């Protein structure tokens, strides 16, 4: 029941925010309270859990005649991602405090509903319920981009919606095909995982699922929607897109590919690693050439998610652990950078690296925050991203050293774009004499929290790894050292 409450809470919170919006900031506080309550509830579930992999597991019939039931379960990976979703929800509200001044009720409702749907994704183990939430998250996220975005927001939002909704058909068709092979009507992933399917069937099903996951993960060549959606979305939208929505793709791949199609995954693993390596290099190189800071960060997301794909495809313990950590680390680094760039844009009305610079003289807190998260972007030791990427590279070395060298070379590219971003924003002389207000408290605290999280995971990853351990073990399909 608690798991369902975890989904219903933001869904209802969104409705409340929608209807009480008006004068004052009521809807903002309601949204923050909703997410805070979710965090409390999550903590309560985790604290009250028994030993074993699952903190909680429930099943209710939804459409019995169709074989659909509400199968929810939460392990460490889900819990970590839900905590991030709720936390980034609060941060999004704070980050958009002054940016969003029109139709604030709908905005906060969309925020809540996006988070509610992603939490549904992180909890569902019935494939159709998973697909339900998978597609349900598109609509409020679409609204966030289309209504409050910049520039050609409608085009960007449409691209986002169409790419992801079309890819969703792959997931749906594969789910139906999988269920039609079962001996009784069910979409329960645990039951479907017990089926013994031939490798070729598994590969086809996996391709269907992967279509949805890779588009959401935005691994090239499925990435075309991402740069514009990220760049043109309002700050809160970018934070949620990078911090939460991309993670649903990584999560789906991490959770369901090894669980449902172990042999299929093994068969296509080399292609997965190659695709990831190509994507990481492509994303990295394109990021190096960007002048728009937000667009640059958007392309780094492509690179990092491609690295996650490499880790999941490699399928050995180190690589999987690295992929899981990288998912979480990237949530902090990318979201923080989007927040900072959004805050900077509000002040300077430009994101062009050629027109910015000298932040360290004008606004030292801004500069320090940028410095930290640019370091995270290039996976400097001490940041959470280092842990993730190092583990992935080590894991890939166990599989194939050629791929490992490719993975290492992507890290070199990341140094180029991260230092370019840092240099363009923080160093040099200020281009204008206009004073620049430093971070205010609504920007300072979120950044501080995300910095601490990045550093803590970077310096003491054991805690997070212990939390993720069961999920990593479950995803471990290849009997290799």
């Amino acid at each position, binding site marked *: 029941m608690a798991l369902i409450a975890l989904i219903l809470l933001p869904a209802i919170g969104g409705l409340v925010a929608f209807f009480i919006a008006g004068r004052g900031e009521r809807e903002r506080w309601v949204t923050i309270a909703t997410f805070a309550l979710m965090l409390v509830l999550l903590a309560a579930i985790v604290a009250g859990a028994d030993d074993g992999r699952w903190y909680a597991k429930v099943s209710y019939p939804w459409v019995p005649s169709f074989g659909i039931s509400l199968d929810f379960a939460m392990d460490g990976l889900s819990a970590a991602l839900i905590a991030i979703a709720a936390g980034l929800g609060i941060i999004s509200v704070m980050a958009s405090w002054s940016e969003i001044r029109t139709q604030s009720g709908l905005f906060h409702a969309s925020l809540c509903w996006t988070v509610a749907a992603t939490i549904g994704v992180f909890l569902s183990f019935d494939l159709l319920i998973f697909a*339900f939430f998978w*597609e349900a998250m598109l*609509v409020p996220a679409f*609204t966030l981009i289309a209504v409050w975005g910049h520039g050609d927001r409608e085009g960007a*939002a449409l691209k986002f*919606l169409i790419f992801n909704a079309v890819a969703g058909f792959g997931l*749906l*068709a594969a789910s139906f095909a999988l269920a*039609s092979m079962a001996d009784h009507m069910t979409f329960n992933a645990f039951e479907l995982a017990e089926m013994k399917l031939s490798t070729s069937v598994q590969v086809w099903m996996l391709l269907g699922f992967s279509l949805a996951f890779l588009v959401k993960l935005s691994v090239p060549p499925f990435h075309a929607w991402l740069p514009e959606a990220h760049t043109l979305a309002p700050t809160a939208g970018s934070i949620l897109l990078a911090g939460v929505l991309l993670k649903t793709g990584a999560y789906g791949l991490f959770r369901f590919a090894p669980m449902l199609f172990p042999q299929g995954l093994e068969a296509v693993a080399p292609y997965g690693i190659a695709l990831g390596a190509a994507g990481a290099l492509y994303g990295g190189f394109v990021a190096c050439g960007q002048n728009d800071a937000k667009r640059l960060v958007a392309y780094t997301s492509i690179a990092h998610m491609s690295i996650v794909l490499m880790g999941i495809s490699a399928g050995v313990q180190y690589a999987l652990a690295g992929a899981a950590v990288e998912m979480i680390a990237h949530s902090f680094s990318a979201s923080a950078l989007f927040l900072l760039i959004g805050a900077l844009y509000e002040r300077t009305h430009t994101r062009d690296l050629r027109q910015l610079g000298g932040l360290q003289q004008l606004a030292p807190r801004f500069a320090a925050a940028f410095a930290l998260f640019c370091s995270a972007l290039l996976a400097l030791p001490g940041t959470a991203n280092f842990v993730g990427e190092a583990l992935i590279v080590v894991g890939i070395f166990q599989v194939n050293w050629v791929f490992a060298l490719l993975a290492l070379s992507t890290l070199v590219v990341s140094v180029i774009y991260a230092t370019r971003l840092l240099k363009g924003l923080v160093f040099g002389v200020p281009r204008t004499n206009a004073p620049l207000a430093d971070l205010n408290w609504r920007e300072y605290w979120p950044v501080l929290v995300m910095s601490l999280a990045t550093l803590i995971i970077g310096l003491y990853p054991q805690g997070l790894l212990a939390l993720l351990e069961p999920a990593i073990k479950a995803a471990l399909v290849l009997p290799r050292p």
Partner: protein
Amino acid sequence: MTAAQFVALLPLIVLAIAAVAAMMLVPLARLEAAQAAAGVGLLAALALVLLRVGAPAAPLGALFTDDGMARFGIAYACLSSLGALVFLRTGVPAKEAPSLLVLVALGAATLAGAGHAATLFLGIEIVSLSLIALFAFRLSRQGLEAAYKFLVMSGLASSALLLGIALIYAETGALDFVGWTGHGALAAFGTALLLAGLAFKFSLAPFHMWTPDAFEASPASAAALAGVVSKAAVAIVILRLFLTAHLPEPVWSSGLAALGAASVLVGNLLALRQPQLPRMLGYSTIAHSGYIALILASGAPRAGEAVLFYLGIYAPAMLGALCVSAALGRAPTLPDLHGLIRRRPLEAIALSLSLLSLAGLPAAGGFIAKLYLLRVLVDGGLWTLLAIVVAGSSLGFYYYARFFTAPFFGQSSPEAEPLPRLDQGLLAVCVVLIVLFGVAPAVLIDVVRATLAP
């Protein structure tokens, strides 16, 4: 006639009386009176059907079938006609309109129980003739054009239908659906003609040409009658033919599949750049007819369930969208929708949710309908049709998305007068149904299953 037979036919009798009563009130009273008479008649017929849910089928002979599906069809026709009646006044100030509306419902109710060629033809003609008059009600150039188009094509379709029936009769010697078990060339040709005639009413491409014009130029409630009431009735006829008749298989199923696939592509493609809400909805109904035809073409054991479920999901979405369209004046375009959320929040929400449902996105009911459609196609292994459906709905995301966010853009234009209470109530009901079917589809699925249970 026994009492049981009389009771079984009572809904049709009540509808006929209501149509006559509404007509007789025309010279005597104001529009509201005719409307009230129509409403009372529809409600009474609805109540009579609902009271008989679960009752054993009355033996009505070959002409009319009294089974779950017929009752579902009559109830559906009454409910959606009631919906159309609510926003009739905004589009048609003519006093004759309510009577014609009830006649459409009567025709649809006849079709719902039609198990015989004579009833089928009768039902189709009652619906068509009433619709022609309703389409022309604005007496504008476009309205007349739409009505004229419909008249000519309807005549053609009726002839095709009649000739088809005649050919099938020539081979099988039967006029009731159960007796249609032909395999020869005559029956095959007859089936093709029959399908063409039905496809016209069902606005399947390439017999769809009248639909967008009718949606654009005629009052929104006439569009609702054509797009929801009569369409569902024809769908039920096709479903009944699918379940009871044994028409030459390759013609029947591949014909339906071809018509369905063509409609999915044509409807979605032509809707793509359509800036006008009602016209877009017109193309959208063509696409949705295509989806339903594909379900029937699959021949899957779940096809019946899937079709009725689809119809149940489709009605509140289409009625909601058309009601909003009627409230915004003639043929509202995209810019007319801007700022609607400030001006008229209920309408904005109802429109967005309706379009969300038609697009097949969760948490609207349309998503579950899409699941049904995909499931039927995957179960049947019809990968080509699946690809066409995926392509069609992908296009659909584009044009629905343009419309469902439009109400949230831009500034509010001048104050609008509030919508009448009844319209507000209708929109609220549509919103509730769309969300309910999306979140708890088991409600509707149970109804549909009970309907189809022998």
